[in-house]
Structure formats: C-alpha cells, structure tokens
C-alpha cells in the first residue's frame, strides 16, 4: 500500500491531501470551530478580520465556523448516501447477474426506465410529494444513484459469473448468497472502488445543488450548498462570501476526481 502511494503521480497526492484535509476538518469540527454552529456573533456580512477569519454570513454568524460544520454535515451526508446507493445497487446487480432469467430482465428494464428520467427532475418530484427531510433526501438520492451502480456491478458480475470457480461453487451446491459473498464480491471490489469515488462526487454535487435550490439540508444546519444560497445576495454588493462555500465544493470534487483518475489509470493497465 505504501509503495503504491510512493509511485503515485503528483496530481493523485494533491487529491489525497485535499480529501484528507476535508475529512480531518469534518471529524474535528467542534475543536476547530471558534464559535457555536448557529450562534449569531457579529454584524451582517462583516469583512475578514482577526475575529472572523472569513467574515460573517447573512445574519451575522461566523462564516469560518459555518464552513467547518458545513464540511461535517455535507461530507457525512454524501458519504452515507453513496454507501447506501452501493449497497442497493451492487446487491441487485449481483443478484441479477447470478440469477439471470426473468429477475434480470425485470430489474434491468425497471432501471432503464429510471435512468431515462432526468435525475434532478426525478428527485424534485419525489421531494415535492414527501417533503424534504434528511432521511427522505438520503433514500431518494441513494435510490436514483444506485441505478448507475447496478449497471456497473451487473456488468462486472456477468464477467465473473462465467468463470470456472463460480461454476465449481454452483456444482458444489452453494446457494446464491454464498456465491455472491465468497466469489463475486471479492473479485468485483477493485472496479467498484474507483466507481465509489465517482459516485461520491456525483452525490456530493447533487446534494449541494439540492441544498442550493433550498430543497436539501434545511437551515439552521450548516451545509455548503445552502450557504451559497443564503449568501447569494451579497455578490451584487461586491462581497464575495457565496464564493467561499461554492469554492470549497469545487475544491473537494476536484480532489476526489484526481484520486479517481489515478485509480482508473491503475486499473486500466498501462495504456499510454
């Protein structure tokens, strides 16, 4: 693992640094933040000073504190959602590949329909019916995103399924779950890991977009997309407060993408 890291290109190291930095901030948020998450401590849109590292927001909360807690809420939510989406998607994908027949047909056609529907519109429709709460948000996005995971894990499992060792396990009389857990999953893990990074980026941007539209994480909880929305008015006065959370979102996504690029390069063999 360490030798792999030593060989990694500069871009992957930068990416790793960015992701680690964000994770540390998220984990140690209460220790880093100088104020309470929702405490009003100053005037509206105060400029950068020793007291407020990044100034204050639209109702006078410390922006630095909000950014630190925002990292925690936004990243945790995106991570949980991506993990859930992988659980749904890969499980269904493996079952479809191993079982085949009408189960595969039914699942695949259903997924085709969901995928032909624009994701953002689908999410907006679900949220309009159920209302926006954090569990609804997690389940909706995980459901929509798991369609992509399903496609990939089904394709990967199809390749593994025709191997001799799966055939042997079948002849031995092993059941569906045993085959998925002991034969398919370990072999499907490497391509799915790179996909996890990509899906995380997508989910992270998606949650940020929904929060920006006012339909994601609800105030007073701090999150980056919502903070852009709340402070959007400042930009017309020449105050660049909304660019800070928006920049943080872009920063983290670029970081994850740099690592994913390196992973894809590794798993694709050496083509250059």
């Amino acid at each position, binding site marked *: 693992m360490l030798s792999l890291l030593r060989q990694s290109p500069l871009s992957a190291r930068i990416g790793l640094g960015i992701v680690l930095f964000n994770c540390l901030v998220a984990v140690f948020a209460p220790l880093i933040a100088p104020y309470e998450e929702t405490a009003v401590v100053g005037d509206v849109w105060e400029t950068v000073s020793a007291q407020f590292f990044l100034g204050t927001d639209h109702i006078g909360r410390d922006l630095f504190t909000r950014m630190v807690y925002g990292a925690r809420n936004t990243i945790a939510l995106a991570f949980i959602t991506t993990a859930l989406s992988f659980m749904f998607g890969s499980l269904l994908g493996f079952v479809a590949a191993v079982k085949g027949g009408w189960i595969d047909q039914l699942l695949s056609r259903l997924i085709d329909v969901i995928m032909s529907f*624009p994701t953002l*519109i689908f999410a907006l*429709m679900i*949220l309009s019916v159920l209302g926006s709460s954090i569990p609804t948000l997690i389940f909706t996005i995980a459901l929509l995103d798991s369609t992509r995971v399903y496609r990939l894990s089904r394709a990967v499992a199809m390749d593994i399924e025709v191997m001799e060792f799966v055939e042997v396990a079948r002849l031995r009389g092993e059941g569906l779950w045993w085959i998925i857990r002991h034969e398919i999953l370990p072999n499907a893990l490497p391509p799915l890991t790179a996909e996890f990074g990509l899906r995380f*980026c997508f989910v992270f941007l998606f949650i940020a*977009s929904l929060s920006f539209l006012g339909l994601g994480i609800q105030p007073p909880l701090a999150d980056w997309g919502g903070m852009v929305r709340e402070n959007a008015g400042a930009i017309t006065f020449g105050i660049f407060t909304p660019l800070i959370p928006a920049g943080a*979102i872009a920063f983290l996504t670029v970081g994850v993408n740099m690592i994913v690029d390196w992973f894809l390069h590794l798993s694709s063999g050496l083509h250059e």
Partner: protein
Amino acid sequence: MKNVICHILKRIGASLATIFVISLIIFIGVELLPGDVADTVLGQSATPETVEAFRKELKLDLPPHIRYVAWLKNFVQGDFGNSLANKRPVAELISWRFSNTLFLAGTTALIAVPLAILLGILAAFYRNTLYDKVISTTTLSFISFPEFFVAYILIALFSVKMELFPSIAMIDPHMGLGRKFYTILLPALTLTCVVTAHMMRQTRAAIINVLASAYIEMAEIKGIRRLRIIIHHAFPNSLSPVINVVAVNLAYLVVGVVIVEVVFVYPGLGQLLVDSVAKRDLPVVQASGLIFSITYIGLNLLADVLSMLSNPKLRQSQF
C-alpha cells in the same frame, strides 16, 4: 435502409413506452401521498366539509385508474389543470416559461456546439502537447465544479467588477431580440462552460479513436497533410459519435438549466418547478416534470436516430 427504419421504429416504440411508464410513476407518486392532496394543501386546521368540497373539485372521489386516464387525456390536449397556489391554469403558467427555457438552451447550444467541436478537433490534432493538456485540465475542472460556482464567478467578474452585464436575467415578452440576447448572455455563458467541457472531451476521444484506424495510416503514408487528414478523413467518420454526443448534451442542457435559472432569477420552467416543489403545488410539479422528461427522452431519441442514420455500418448490416 430497411434495417435502419426497423431499428428506428423499435427505438421510437421504446421511448413511447418509457414516457408512458414515467407518466404512470408521476401519477402514482402523487397518489402515494400520505392522506391526499386535499389534506396536504388545506393543512390540519381545515374542517371536514372544506376538505370534502376540495376533494370533489380535484375529482379525488373517483377511483385512481379513471382519474389517470382523464389526467393523461387532458395532458395530451394541453389542459394541465389549475395551479393550487394561485388557481390559474397551469398551461398558461407553463407555456411562456417553457419557451424561455428553450430560448436559453438554444442560445447556449448555438455558442457551445461549434466551440466544443472546434476545441475537440484542435485537441485531437495537437494531442499530447501542452495545448491539449491545458484544454483537458481546464475542461476536467469545469466538469467537477458545481454550476452555481461557475455562475457566481462569472457574476463576480462580469457584472460586479466590470459592470458589463446584468446579474439578473429578467426578460419580458416585449423585449427586442438583441436586448434578450444581451440579458441572457451570462446564464448562457455559464451553461456553455459546463456543457462544452463534456462535449469537447467526447469529440476529442471520438476523433482520436478514428485516427487509430488503418485508412488514416494509409493517408499518412501517402503524405497527405495532417490537417487535411483530420478534416477530410477523420471528421466525417467520427460524425456519428459526435452527433450523439451533441444531442445527449443538449438533453442534459434542457435539464441543467434548472440551477442556472435559479441563480439568475430567469423566468424559465426550471425555476417554476423549483418554486412549485417548495410550495408543493402538485399539478404544476406534475406537468412541468412530465414536460422536462418528454423533452429529455425526445432529445435522447433524436441522438440515437441521428447516429443510426449517420453510421454507414448500420445502414448496410443485415440484422
């Protein structure tokens, strides 16, 4: 040629089936609402009599399958019912806004498509040089950026610092065409940045793919200039994937406008949809969701049909 028509008909059939299923999902989605629309809209303080009257007005007392058929029939005829928020007909709210959305998406396409194809060809021509790397890195970062980040950077630069363009893209029906273009230039530029990145990368990949084939090598051996090879030999053969890329990205564009419309307070269908979701104005959400989906599926269908038509292999194949 017969094969192609057969393929195309199959593809159109599949799209119609998808649209039908989506209309069902949209309808059932609202059915699944805990309680029903009447309870949700009127809230807990409403008396049973008002709820009952409201239910009659929305025809909620009829069984679901009859209501679905009636809803679909009305939708096809252009009658989307009345908005719950302000009682106006949904069709009236939507038509102007939808044309605005198409105007914004169309303007963006006019800028983005030629730009992306040109950049893609240049990147393929100068591949693995500094120019290619710079273009690739720039476009990759634009893909990772959220749309509103690009939008606010453009606002900060062009409307706050330089004061060239308005930061709010309010248009009304009485504006002249030139004035309209000026007003929506910033949102169009934002969308251009996002869409061009995707299109340019895929164009580059498609052309490089063709450049690896034997007839290109033959042309090179004959001593034809590289620019001529790219324009005369590589580009026509990569047309099919490129057309596909363009149409798929246009489909993305129609949906991608939602966030940009909200940033620039542009009176489009996307903004109406977001507002209605927040207000839980279900008839408007249903109608605009279905219109967005139909446009999206239609453009994807167009992408497939065009790439089938422009693919010589498929025109001659025997299956």
